[in-house]
């Protein structure tokens, strides 16, 4: 969710996210059907919940009881995290000055992550001067 919303009863961002998940799921289903026409195995693999991680344990496909209000939506990493973030000096990027950023100040070094980017990649796996961090929205 990114802990954002709008203060309305159903936060806008959540509806946006849920809608996006539905759209991406439909696209993936189409891809799976198309693959299945050529190659049944490939289609089945594409449709697997594990996505890019077919051999990793997944509690949802292993049959663990799911908590209330849990909705299976997309395969793993269908929204792809940033696993190898690159950082530059402020002069090398051209974000609008009113862009919101998540600012992190650890071990004497500051890093800024723009919300306008995080809102569609959602996860940045980082190492902040020796501290393994994860920035999420």
């Amino acid at each position, binding site marked *: *969710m*990114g*802990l*954002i*919303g*709008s*203060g309305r009863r159903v*936060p*806008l*961002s959540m509806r946006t*996210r*849920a809608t996006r*998940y539905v759209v991406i799921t439909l696209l993936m289903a189409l891809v799976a059907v198309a693959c299945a026409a050529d190659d049944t195995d490939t289609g089945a693999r594409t449709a697997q919940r594990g*996505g890019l991680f077919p051999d*990793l*344990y*997944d*509690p*949802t496909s292993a049959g663990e009881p*799911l908590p209330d*209000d*849990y*909705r*299976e939506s997309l395969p*793993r990493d*269908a929204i792809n*995290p940033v696993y190898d*973030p*690159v*950082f*530059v*000096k402020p002069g*090398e*990027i051209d*974000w*609008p000055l*009113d*862009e*919101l*950023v*998540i600012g*992190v*100040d*650890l071990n004497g070094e*500051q*890093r*800024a992550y*723009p*919300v*306008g*980017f995080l*809102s569609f990649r*959602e*996860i940045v*796996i980082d190492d902040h001067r020796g*501290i393994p*961090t*994860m*920035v*999420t929205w």
Partner: protein
Amino acid sequence: MVHRREIDGQPIVFGNQGDLWMNAMTWFDHDTGSVWSQPTGEAILGPLKGTTLELLPSTLSTWQDWQERFPDTLALDAFTRRHEFSISQMVVAVVVGDDSVAIRFADLREQGSLSASIGGEPVLIVADPEVDRWAAYSRLVDGVELDLQLLNGELVDPASDDRWDVALGASKTGALPLDRVSAFSSFGSDYRNFYPDGELLGS
């Protein structure tokens, strides 16, 4: 939100589970495949169920304000898209153990700072007087609980006259720096969903 992706001292890589729990994001870890909830930082399914990641201090501000405050900052090499909200719509939440307190940023800005005891920890949440940014500090300094006040754009301990920088917590009078406590920005409705027992202050 920013979490320390480490369990028992071992770094762990996380991915996007792609599911929604209470309308919120879920992760999986590459080691065990356990499923985690973003707003709580806790594993809700799988072998690590019940484990919680440490929330790290972070702040939300405009790019201009952040650069002015930290000219040497690094920036994630990324493009951006427009968003449709501002900091004043959000709440600042501090979580210590099972206890939490949140205050609307607009109210924090108006009153300057908020002293609270959260999970037994004396905490000060303060709005930066110059820019739309906030910080949260422990009021315990060297084991002594201070009655920190926001005066003339600085944090002041009336008992000792020690002064600290609002944004950094650095002492201006040779005292120890203030320790940050973990806090995050959220929309009020999301905060209520995930911290139903937490106290949401302000209008």
